[in-house]
């Protein structure tokens, strides 16, 4: 194996961390975001207000700071060390920060999508004697998904690239790994990471195009 190959292999290994962070964030932030969206639309003013404020603060500050705060704040404020200190602890903290951040972004997308479904669809369900849950899952949800797919696709692609922010708490993702080579005087690995991102984003784009085509039959 040449040196180039072995470096690319190590980069690919560390890209696994980016992908895992991406996957975990996606899987958890989507349902959490839906929950926050519902809270934001709650008829109870206080709940809606709290939820909207949370979203506003999270969307208003850099994700990098949020990662720092989530990981360091407990220790700095002498609240003990909920995360521990090893690599897996760091990964857990980063994942939590990412999930909260992206759940807030997703919640706004969901909210827009839900409000965009014509009230007539809801009423048609009511008149046919469906329960609220049935109306949401059987009537509204798929139309919401169809509506928000373009916005989601943007946000998900941003998430891929954001995963490398996790290096701020020493998660050895691909860019941090590449910088290790930079420190040794090898510069190309850092720039080559762009190709990894590009390839992954390309795959996601194909996936989203496929989903959009799949839902094309729903004319909303």
């Amino acid at each position, binding site marked *: 194996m040449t040196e180039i190959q072995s470096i690319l292999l190590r980069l690919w290994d560390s890209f696994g961390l980016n992908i895992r962070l991406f996957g975990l964030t996606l899987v958890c932030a989507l349902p959490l975001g839906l929950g926050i969206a519902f809270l934001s639309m709650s008829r109870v003013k206080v709940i809606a207000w709290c939820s909207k404020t949370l979203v506003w603060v999270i969307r208003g500050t850099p994700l990098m700071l949020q990662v720092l705060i989530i990981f360091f704040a407990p220790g700095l404020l002498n609240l003990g060390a909920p995360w521990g200190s090893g690599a897996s602890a760091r990964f857990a903290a980063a994942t939590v920060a990412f999930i909260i951040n992206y759940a807030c972004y997703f919640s706004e997308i969901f909210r827009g999508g839900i409000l965009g479904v*014509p009230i*007539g*669809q809801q*009423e*048609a*369900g*009511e*008149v*046919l*004697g*469906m*329960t*609220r849950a*049935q109306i949401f899952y*059987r*009537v509204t949800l*798929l*139309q919401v998904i*169809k509506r928000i797919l373009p916005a989601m696709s943007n946000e998900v692609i941003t998430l891929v690239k954001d995963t490398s922010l996790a290096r701020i708490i020493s998660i050895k993702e691909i860019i941090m790994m590449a910088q290790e080579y930079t420190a040794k005087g090898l510069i190309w690995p850092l720039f080559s990471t762009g190709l990894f991102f590009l390839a992954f984003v390309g795959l996601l784009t194909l996936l989203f195009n496929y989903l959009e085509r799949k839902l094309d*039959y*729903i*004319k*909303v």
Partner: protein
Amino acid sequence: MPILEVRDLHKSFGRNKVLDGISFSLDQGATLAVIGSSGSGKTTLLRCLNFLEQPDHGNILVNGQTIFDAKDAPMLTEHSKRQKRFHFGLVFQSFNLFPQYTVLKNITLAVELLAKGQAGKPDFTGIETQARDLLTQMGLIDKEAFYPYQLSGGQQQRVAIARALALKPEILCFDEPTSALDPELTGEVLKVVRELAQKKTTMVIVTHEMAFARDVADHVLYMDEGRIIEEGSSEQVFSQPAHERTKQFLSRFSGGSA
């Protein structure tokens, strides 16, 4: 005993009094046409019957049983509202078909969900058979696998009618079922409604098609500003309207262009 009795229904939106004491009754198998100018409260009346709006005052009785009383309204649970809704079916002006389902599934969905919620094994085949019967009746049996967007407006509206009928409502309500349709497509839908009338389906139809109302309705209500100004058999209201307002309203149509 009338199948539907509405007693002194009142409904305001903020300061805007939209229904101002509506009372009428309807016999089993009869067809009631509700006419009146824009904003007179016709849609709101239908929405109250279907529990989409909650009247501020008044009762609604079906088969002599009170299914709605404004006094008890605050205690009405979601569940009991749903139960009471089954007395009525509603066909919307804008169809409101579910875009993600085929024509057949649009018709069976609610029935299947209802069957699942009840004791015993749901008879899905039976439900589909019934839905196909309805589609045949609507002249759409060849379209069962189509999606709504693949149908013309008139066809969509007929699916909406089948969807409402699938739940076997005692009273079927229509809110201007043809006003979102091109003149050419209107005919198909009116034909279907006419057939339902001949089969003695109890119906309440809000419509702007005067000729059609005259043809098909046994009974006509003329509403203005939330009140019933004139009420009577179709012949009576159209040929010898008693009130000046009604005469004026009807003259606009007979003098119309088509």
